[in-house]
Each structure stands twice: as structure tokens, then as C-alpha cells.
């Protein structure tokens, strides 16, 4: 092969700079990102090499590997030069997607988001069907909190139970809450992570306008992805409200002695940190505290955990893409859970629960129940 002359891809370099990805040029090619990336556990992919080529503007980000990134931030959390790799990825995705070169499946997701305001393709008028039979009221001023349900909890049959569980817990604790019902739209996280900033903005602005209109001041989110978007992305658009993840609210309710839980016998439980709750927002202790408050629960820590936790594989749009069984991080996670002898694998994110449950069903050597923290707590309500 003859060497080609370097011809910098100026347009892409400009785009990356505009999208705030200029920390890219700080990279000194130590490869820590590659070896830290969960993909390195299951297949060959060099994050470093992608950055290398992008630094020189000779491509590298436009290939298929670009769409592997789960935006889990494990790399950025360790990068010795402070390169904001997920932002580089996001910027590159938006550049590639603008040229229509993203995976077909993601085109569909974008379509759903644009037409039905959710990535799953559910009908907008069925958004609040998850709450059928429960007395969930529309949010009005004076209520303690707005429950932001999120698309997965609204449409996915498995995750609907999480939302329903949370309703029972809030009722039991005497928290007054409401939802936006069918007026809620996707928080925009999927759009943002797959590189469609405009779509994100239109969704976010729509929600923000509804919050404003209904006088929402305090939001509780079910999905850490909603939580992250509401907490850190919406304020950039000028929105202003308090937001917390439901595990933070539950921890507070327990502190105030407003939840009575009964024993589950002597159960070894392990907790999987969702990336968007942990690395993105530093919420490590509250979910653990909630689990440990269930009488009988014995919390065992998997390796790795907390800031080093292994991604489930669902973020950054990966939940919508097919991953071959031998490349699923969630399979590794199941093995790690089994290594500490857990019977229950708890997490606090719809994507994590979906992925881990799939893997548990296909790879667990002995029964390993995958539960969302909310489900587990609701089961143990006294």
C-alpha cells in the first residue's frame, strides 16, 4: 500500500471545534481510553486511534466504530489530559448523521422521535397507559413533585412495572405528585446522544414550556438519562427547576421515616451503577442506602463498582441497536454479579434493567433476579 498524502478534513475539524470538542487536541495518545473502554473487553476497538486520526483531521470518526460508544464516560473519567471523549463522539455523530450516514436503525429512532416524540414508536395518546388502574393525577401547582416518567417506562412493558412500583411507593409515603400525562414528550436524551442536537432542542423546549406552563418547580425522574438531560442540558436552554433521581427522593423519605419496609429474608443483593446516575452525576450512595434499608438485604459489591462501574451497554443510543450476544457488556456484568454470590441484581435505570435481565435470562448459571430498585422497594412495602 502506498502512503496517501495527508489531506485534513477541515469541515469535520471545524464542526468538532464548534461542538465544543476541541479538548480532542490535548490527547497525547496514552491509550488509557482504549483499555478502559468496556468494548475492549469484548472486541477490538481503539478509541485512541479514532482520536488520533481526528486530531490530524484524517478521518477516523466516520467509521462504524463511532456508533459503538455507549457514552458511559469511563474513558473521560480517567483521561489524564481531560479530553471530553463523549463530547467528541457526540460532535462526530452529529456531523456524520447530518450527512445521513448513521446506522439505519437510528434513522428510524429519529423518525419516531420526530413524529411520536418517543424513540420506541409508541403512540403519543398512549403515553400514560402505563398508569391504568392507578390513581395518577395530572400535575398541578401545589403538589410536591412532578414525576417525569420517560419513554421507556411509559411504553416498554417490562419497565412500566417500575413506574407503577414507584407510584405505589410515593403513595405509601404520602408524597403528592402528578405527571404531565400525554403532554410529556421524550426528554431528548436519545436524540442528543445519537447526534441530533436540533431534535433534542425541539423536544426539550416542548417539555420546558409545559413545565413553565404548569408551574413545575421540582421534578423526580425515573430514568437516569432523563435525570441527566433535565439537570444539565435543559438549563443550557434557559429552563430552571429542581430535579432529582427517584433514588435520591427515596433515600430522603427513608431518612424521614416515611417508608416502612418489611424483611426479604437474608438475601445477597448487588447493585449495578447506571453510568448516567453514577459517573455523570455522582449518585452512588443513595440507591445503596435504599437497598440496605430493606430488612434482610445484604449488599455485596461487584468489581468494578461506583466510578469504575461497567456499563450495561444501553446508553448513547445502543439500546436501539443490535449487539451480538458475545459482545454484550451485560453478560460480563452477570458473571461479576454471580462472582459475589448475589441472588438479586438491582439497578436504577430502565436500560440497565432491560439489558441485565436479557443477559441474566440467557447467561446466568443460577437464578439471578434483576430488579429495579423501585420494584424491589415496592415489593417490600410493609
Amino acid at each position: 500500500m502506498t502512503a496517501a498524502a495527508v489531506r485534513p478534513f477541515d469541515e469535520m475539524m471545524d464542526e468538532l471545534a464548534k461542538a465544543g470538542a476541541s479538548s480532542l487536541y490535548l490527547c497525547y495518545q496514552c491509550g488509557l481510553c482504549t483499555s478502559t473502554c468496556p468494548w475492549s473487553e469484548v472486541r477490538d476497538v481503539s478509541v485512541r486511534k479514532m482520536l488520533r486520526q481526528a486530531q490530524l483531521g484524517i478521518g477516523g470518526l466516520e467509521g462504524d466504530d463511532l456508533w459503538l460508544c455507549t457514552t458511559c464516560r469511563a474513558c473521560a473519567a480517567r483521561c489524564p489530559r481531560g479530553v471530553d471523549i463523549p463530547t467528541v463522539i457526540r460532535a462526530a455523530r452529529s456531523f456524520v448523521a447530518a450527512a445521513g450516514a448513521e446506522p439505519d436503525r437510528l434513522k428510524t429512532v429519529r423518525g419516531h422521535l420526530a413524529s411520536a416524540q418517543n424513540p420506541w414508536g409508541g403512540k403519543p395518546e398512549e403515553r400514560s397507559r402505563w398508569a391504568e388502574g392507578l390513581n395518577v393525577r395530572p400535575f398541578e401547582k401545589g403538589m410536591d413533585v412532578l414525576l417525569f416518567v420517560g419513554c421507556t417506562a411509559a411504553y416498554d412493558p417490562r419497565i412500566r412495572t417500575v413506574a407503577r412500583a414507584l407510584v405505589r411507593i410515593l403513595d405509601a409515603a404520602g408524597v403528592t405528585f402528578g405527571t404531565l400525562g400525554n403532554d410529556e414528550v421524550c426528554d431528548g436524551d436519545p436524540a442528543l446522544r445519537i447526534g441530533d442536537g436540533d431534535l433534542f432542542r425541539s423536544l426539550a423546549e416542548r417539555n420546558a414550556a409545559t413545565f413553565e406552563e404548569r408551574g413545575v418547580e421540582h421534578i423526580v425522574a425515573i430514568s437516569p438519562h432523563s435525570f441527566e438531560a433535565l439537570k444539565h442540558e435543559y438549563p443550557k436552554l434557559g429552563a430552571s427547576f429542581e430535579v432529582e433521581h427517584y433514588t435520591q427522593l427515596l433515600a430522603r423519605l427513608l431518612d424521614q421515616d416515611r417508608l416502612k419496609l418489611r424483611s426479604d429474608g437474608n438475601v445477597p443483593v448487588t447493585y449495578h451503577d447506571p453510568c448516567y446516575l453514577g459517573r455523570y452525576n455522582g449518585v452512588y450512595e443513595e440507591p445503596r442506602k435504599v437497598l440496605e434499608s430493606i430488612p434482610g438485604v445484604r449488599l455485596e459489591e461487584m468489581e468494578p463498582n461506583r466510578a469504575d462501574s461497567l456499563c450495561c451497554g444501553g446508553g448513547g443510543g445502543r439500546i436501539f441497536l443490535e449487539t451480538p450476544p458475545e459482545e454484550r457488556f451485560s453478560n460480563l456484568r452477570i458473571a461479576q454479579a454471580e462472582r459475589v454470590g448475589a441472588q438479586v441484581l438491582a439497578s436504577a435505570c430502565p436500560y440497565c434493567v432491560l439489558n441485565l435481565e436479557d443477559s441474566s435470562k440467557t447467561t446466568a448459571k443460577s437464578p439471578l433476579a434483576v430488579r429495579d430498585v423501585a420494584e424491589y422497594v415496592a415489593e417490600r412495602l410493609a
Partner: protein
Amino acid sequence: MTGGTRKIGVFICHCGGNISDVVDVNAVREFAAQQDEVVASTDFRFMCSNQGQARLQETIKEKGLDGVVVACCTPKMYEDMFRGSAKEAGMNPYLLEIANVREQCAYAHRHEPEQATEKAKALVAAQVAKVRNLRPLDVKTAPIHDGVAVIGAGIAGIHAALLLGNAGHKVTLIEKSPTIGGNMARFDKTFPTLDCAMCTLSPKMNDVFNHPNVDLMTYAEVKDAVRAPGRFTLTVVQKPRYVTDACIGCNRCTEACPVSGPKSPIKVESEWNLGLSPRKAIYLPFSQALPQQWTLDADHCYYFQRNHTCGICAKVCPADAIDFTQRPEEVQVEVGAVVVATGYRPFDASQIPQYGFGKYADVYHGLQVERLLSSTGPTNGKLLKKDGTPPQSVGIIHCVGSRDEKYRSYCSRVCCMASLKYAHLIRERTGARVYNFYMDMRANGKGYEEFYQRVASEQVGFVRGKPTRVTDQATAPEEEGKLTIVVEDTLAGVVLRVPVDMVVLSTAMDPEDVDGLLASLKLDKSPDGFVKEYHLKINPTETAVKGIFVAGCAQSPKDITDTIAQAGAAAMSASMFLGSGSMTLNPLVAEVNPDLCRACTRCSEVCEFDAVRVDPEALVAIVDETSCEGCGKCTVVCPTGAITVRQFTKTQIAASIDALAPKAVAP
């Protein structure tokens, strides 16, 4: 206006045409002559030439000038020279000001000669107005105390103390640990020559210990420092050793001491061996320690911790050298200069949990490996794993904490070579396979690249990549019972899992924790935490505080070669400073009119140099002229106008402003 009493001369320089081609110097000269109190106005081709200066001096003498304005180039060029000439001619040099008509008129407005000329007139008028308001200033000097304190007795401090002592200065060498020698005394060999570290250090330790001009204080710390012109008074705390000079070094106390014994509830690890071996409560840090005087660690001693129940050391001591009644003592040390040589300590590798330091037994940091390789170390120089067997393979991870914005952004400069040294010694002593995990090899000293070549030729593995973790979880049979280093080999572009028996972390160098000392000495730190030097490039051994010098790793990470060189330079600077006998105080600093001061403390609150304080008894602010830099922040916050900066008083500046103002320009 009434004629004043001042006699001011104005000298306008042509600068060989640089000025006169643009500015009408005749017009400026005539204009200047009309200014109040101007008695001489002249122009000359080159004011900076010998003839020009002679003209200046003659006119000063002839006319009895007590004020001069030279209209020429920027004051940054020749202000000092003109002031010197004026002084020689018998005029107070601080009555001379420069009107910068070259850079600010002839150069900047060369296409507008008329405007340039008008502006030149204004600049001359402004300086004449200022000079009219100037007062002659005395340049004060303060005698410099002839002693020097060297703080820290590692290789930098020892070397500096020796040179200063040899130069005839009275040196007080202050070391906080029980022995001198510093980190270098822990090393086995030094790169790139692989000399035995103690063989080169030990003679210097002995020299400084026995030097007639060096007063050595070990186990002593500087607690406070008070600065006066030409003098520092250090308050040094002599910590109690509980062992008197009568100690004959027989070691019976150490042998008898029950602490750290197998059944002892009180256990303590050897600082000297960095936790790799236990030590007794009464001990000598290592066999060649100087002074050869034992030290009792009261914090881990049964006598002190268990209500006087022990005291066996005193019973076995043949010299009756144990004295439990000792107390810390404060000693005042007066010196004229201070050399700060407080050195470094290794970065705490447990801050990066992924590398398993403190979690896996066979993960060590570099200084520990020095001890493991040293014949005086805990394994008598045999490199052994915790289980007592020699390693078959060793991984050395570079840049642990260094070059990492999460920890220390800077390069620690020595780790590359130190890692090569470990690689060589480990291969030489154990034959183990050695892998270096590096990002860049920095071999930038004399003989270093050659050393790199030599070690490479010894079949040491070099993997370019920063490992993500060290783990004991095996994913393949080769990893069973091993520590596996996971890394991207960035040259091959593949992720490797490298199983080894031992991991060495080449940790960053941290500055020794001397915040208290730096605060007492009013020294600043650079953003990296090391002592801030006066100028990084051209004056790396002095500090912003006159009379304080810095040497060795206190200033920045460096190897022994550079440490010695800088210690020598610091000693030279200190010696010259002391040898000058007196220091000139910059007269352009703040002064307080006590009649106006109301002791409100606003001046001392804004001062960045601790140069002004309020005397609580006299209720007046007092300026320390050695510390004041003359920035004038205090003058703006002073409510009463009591504090002013000489040569920049409100009347002086306002006079300039008035003269520059549009009205004043009109003829």
C-alpha cells in the same frame, strides 16, 4: 504664576534623527524653556553618549540643577544611566525623570510630525510638572546578617551548606528528621552511571556533619520566621529525642524495646523503609545515619503511651543516655539569608485505586523499590515478593500521578530514568522479565539516552501505553496467581493483558509538605505546588523574597545532577548576597505619614506582600521597606491619604495629568 524655587534642566535628545526627524526639537526646546522653574533647556544629538552625559553633568553643576527632565527614548533604556550620571554630578538621582518622546511621539506618530511635536511638548511639560513636585530620596541600606540557614538536609541542602561553609559563612543546617541524607540516602544506585548512592553521598554527609562552619540541627523544624531588613529570625523547634548526647550507639535499647515485637499491641513501621519493615520505638533510622544518635518515638512508646509502664531502654542503656523528661525546645536562629531545600516526597499511589497500591501486596512505589534493592534495606538488597520468593516478571508503570490532570499535571522528570534503573537492576539481580509501561521516554540528560539504549539492549519490554488497571482476576490460565496489567499497546494498536508477579509504580514527585514554612517565610507556591522561584528561566534559584533562595526538588522535580547544580547556584547567589554586606532598599516604596494614619488596617488587608502592618499599640501603620514592592494598592484604599508611594504621590501624578490635559497643550 510666581517663579518657583526649583532649578530644572530639560535635555532633548535627537537620537541621531530617530527623534529629530519627526519631532521639531527646536520647538520643544523653546517650549520647555518657558516652563516654570526651568532654568536650562538644551538639545543634543545623542544624550546617551559620553558627550551627552557630560553635557548633562556640566549643566547640573553649572546651573545647580535640582531637577532634570531628559526627553529621549523609553525610561526602560537609560533612566538608570541618566540617574547615575546625575548622581555623579551631585544631584539627587530621584529628581530626574524621562519624557519618552521617541517611542511615544517620534515612533508612534512619525507621519504626523506636528502632532508628534505637540505631544512631545506635553510629555515634557508633564515630566517638568512632576519633577517640580518630587522630593529628593535617600537610598537606604541595611546591613545583612552574616549567617545563613539551609532548611532541609537532603543532597541539595547538604551540598549548599558545604559550599556556603567552605566560603566562610556561618551555616545553620536544619533537618526535620532524625538524620541527614534525605531521599538520596534511600537509593541503591543512581542513574545513568549506576554509582552506589551512599558511596557518593556518605562522604558529603560526613563533611557537612564535621564542618566547622556548619551548625547542624536535626529532628528540628522551623516554626516561624520574622523578617527585618537584612535579617531573618527563625524560630526553630528542637523536638525531643529523649536520648542525650551521652548515647554511645550500642543499639542495646533498640534490641530491648518491645514495640513492634510479634506480640506487641503497639506496632510501627519504618519511615526509612517506607513501611516495608517494622521498627522499634527507639531507633536509628539506618546504619549510616548522621548524627549517630538514637531517637525515641514517644507516639509509639510504652513509657509514654501506657502510663510509664515500660522504660526498659533506660534500664539497659549503659551510658544513662535516656531522658524521658525532655521537652520540645524553641531556639531562635538569626541569619541574613535562607536556602530552602525541603525536597520532595512520593505521590500517594493509593489515590489511583486501579493500580492496586495498598490493595495487592506486590504493588510497590519507586522509593520502596529503592529500599528493596538497597543492601541496607529490609531484604538486604534481595528483590523479593512479599511471600519471600523472587519475581519471575515485573511491570513498571511510568507516570503514576504525573502528566495526568486528574492528579499532577507536570512531568516529574526523573521517573523515566529511575524506571530504566529499576528495570536494569531487577533484570540484573533476578533475571525476571521486565516490562516498562510508558507514554514517552524522556532521556534528556547527559548519558541518559545511552542508558536507555543499554537497558533496551538488556531485553527489557517497552509497552507504549497507560495501563487502565492492575487486577488479580484471571481471565486465562497464564494470569492465575499473577497481577495482570491491562493496557493498550498504542504502537501495535491492541489491548494487552500482561501478567506479572510484581508491579512497580513510578510515582510522581510531590513537594514535601512545607506549607507552614512557606507561609512563615512569605514564599509563594507555583500552581504545581512547588516553591515559586523569582523567574523560571533566568533566575530559578532566587525567590521573590530578597535573601531567600531555593534549591533542589523544593523548586521543581529534578534529578540529582540538576539538584547539585541548582544547590551550587543557590549557594553562590546566597554567598554573593551575604558577601555584599548590606542590601539596598528600593526607595520607591510606600511610606506612612503617622499624623494622618488612623490604623484602619485597610492597607494591610490589600497588601499581597505583608509589607504593611498596623502596630496595635501605637495605632499606626508601619511599612516594612524590605518587603514593600511599591505597587500602591494601599494608597487607593487608604481613607485618609496617610500612605503614599514615593515618586508616585497624588500631587506628583496629578501635576502630570494637569500638564498633559488638553488645555495645557495650547501654547
